[in-house]
């Protein structure tokens, strides 16, 4: 433990700025993945263990499109929509066959899909890790705020992810679609009885969740190496977020993702060797004391 250093950091503006900016960016990228996971669980009652692979697909699609067009904007759009489309097929052709079956079946189908996708990615893009690099237009000197460093590209990432989060909140809270989705999460039978096609709702929600994961993958492709099997570590962190935030709660996922981001950034100063352990310990603690998580419904 280096708690003295943590105290020193917390009393210096530059350190707080640098670590907070890092924590926010890590947390928001994590939120994009975890919000999709929690949305799918909330509405479909399905634990999508293959969610990390969707992140990976988003990253690879963005890499390819960026290579062809040199446009980061197009790359992100392609990564998001392409992954959403893939999610649609995944839901329609595989997952829809196991609705209502126990969690074991969900696990096995997703496990199979993870295995297949990791190999397919290797066949299509090769086994070498790849890197997109920070696009030309974002290679600018970092902002210096109160002596702390905020990289230009991180500021861009934060702006984009925050915009997506706001859009998601507005979509879920203010639109007719959002109200139907929330109703479907509480009582799918009732929504069906009102003449709304739950099949369409399920497919749309899964596609949105997949698109969010794809967006996170595409947005982080410039700064993280893109490689088959990259989904696993993302998956585990998003699970921790989902559990801490409460399964099905988007607000809870946002809070938990930011908590994790800050644990990472400040933890690397205060308790560098226990950052991972702290995350699992937090998850265990939440499960023991409040299984429904920070913002969740009581489990039935």
């Amino acid at each position, binding site marked *: 433990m280096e708690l003295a250093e943590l105290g020193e950091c917390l009393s210096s503006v530059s350190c707080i700025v640098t670590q907070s900016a890092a924590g926010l960016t890590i947390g928001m990228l994590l939120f994009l993945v975890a919000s999709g996971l929690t949305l799918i669980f909330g509405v479909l009652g399905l*634990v999508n263990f293959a969610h990390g692979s969707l992140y990976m697909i988003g990253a690879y699609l963005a890499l390819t499109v960026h290579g062809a067009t040199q446009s980061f904007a197009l790359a992100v759009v392609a990564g998001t929509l392409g992954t959403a489309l893939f999610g649609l097929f995944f839901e329609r052709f*595989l997952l829809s*066959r*196991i609705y209502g079956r*126990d*969690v*074991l*079946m969900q*696990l*096995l*189908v997703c*496990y*199979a*899909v*993870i*295995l*297949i996708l*990791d*190999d*397919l990615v*290797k*066949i299509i893009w090769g086994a070498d890790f790849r890197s997109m690099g920070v696009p030309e237009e974002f290679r600018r000197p970092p902002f210096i705020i109160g002596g702390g460093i905020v990289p230009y590209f991180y500021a861009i990432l934060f702006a984009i992810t925050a915009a997506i989060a706001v859009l998601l909140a507005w979509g879920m809270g203010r639109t007719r679609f959002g109200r139907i989705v929330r109703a479907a999460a509480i009582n799918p039978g009732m929504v069906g009885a009102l003449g709304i096609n739950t099949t369409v709702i399920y497919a749309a929600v899964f596609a949105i969740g997949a698109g969010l994961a794809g967006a996170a993958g595409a947005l982080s492709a410039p700064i993280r190496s893109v490689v088959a099997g990259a989904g696993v570590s993302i998956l*585990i962190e998003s*699970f921790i977020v989902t*559990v801490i935030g409460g*399964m099905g709660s988007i607000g809870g996922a946002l809070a938990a993702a930011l908590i994790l981001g800050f644990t990472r950034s400040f933890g690397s100063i205060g308790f560098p*060797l226990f950052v*991972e*352990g702290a995350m*699992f*310990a937090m*998850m*265990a603690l939440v*499960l*023991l004391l409040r*299984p429904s998580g920070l913002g969740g419904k009581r*489990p039935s």
Partner: protein
Amino acid sequence: MRDGVLRDAGIATLVLAGFLAVTLGGFGSAGLLDFAIRFATFGLLALSLNLLIGTTGLVSFGHAAYFAMGAYAFGLLMQRAGLSIPLAILLALGCTALLALVVGALCVRLSEIYFAFLTLAFQMLLHSVILSWISLTGGDQGLMGGIPKPPFLGIDLSRPLHLAGFGMACLLVSTVALRQVVRSPFGAALRMLRDNPDRAAFVGLSVYRYRLAAFVIAGTFAGLGGVLMSLYVSGAFPTFAFWTTSGEAIFMIMLGGVTVFLGPLVGVAIFLILNDRITAVTEHHGLFLGIILLVIVLGLRKGLLDFVVDHWRARRGASP
């Protein structure tokens, strides 16, 4: 009840005798011995996990924790304390049971998906501890330097033939024991908890205690699997406690079937053969395994033995 034990024990003895006759009779290639050891190892892991999944209805994603605990405890006892193998095995199983008791006491209260996550979290916690406690466990390099295997009762486990025989004996004894557990009133209570926990509570069963007992029993037998694994590879590695090991165990059970008692063993055999054949012909191992898994889960919708038994029952039901 007694007849059941005698019959099972008799069958088990016959199987073991048959196995020994084949191997001692000179038909036992090195490949067959290797297969037998691995079959025994994963057989224990899968069979014990099915006590939770199939009989009790608790889907544990963290079963490999006890497998790893058995392997590390046994390896460390042999390396550091220089005990005899039977004593070290007993102590290692004791450690595993204790771990299962502590984790189980915290986990079994939770319902389905939360139970799965919490068991997974504890397994990953154990994995982190193994990785970071380098002075004891060797960290990511695992327990190195080999595990001493002093002969006992004329059994020399450093010889593959003896190890295979010993492994099969462990598996068969455990199979008979677990079958007794499943068929006992205790097992009937577990099934009732699975199918109708409210009614079970109404009858006056303590859901908590029964589930905890099942959890500890399952963990202990998984630990024995871990002991065999550490004997086989002469070491112990952090991957034993990684979630992929739990995932493979669930995969094996699913291949064979959860409703038939011996289903998991069939699954283990299929899994091992698939694994060995596929790695031998392609480097796209995951692609093939994944497709086979999808076909079984979405096509058959149950394990192979489940499918066969249901089919057979349906036909028998139709014929008279």
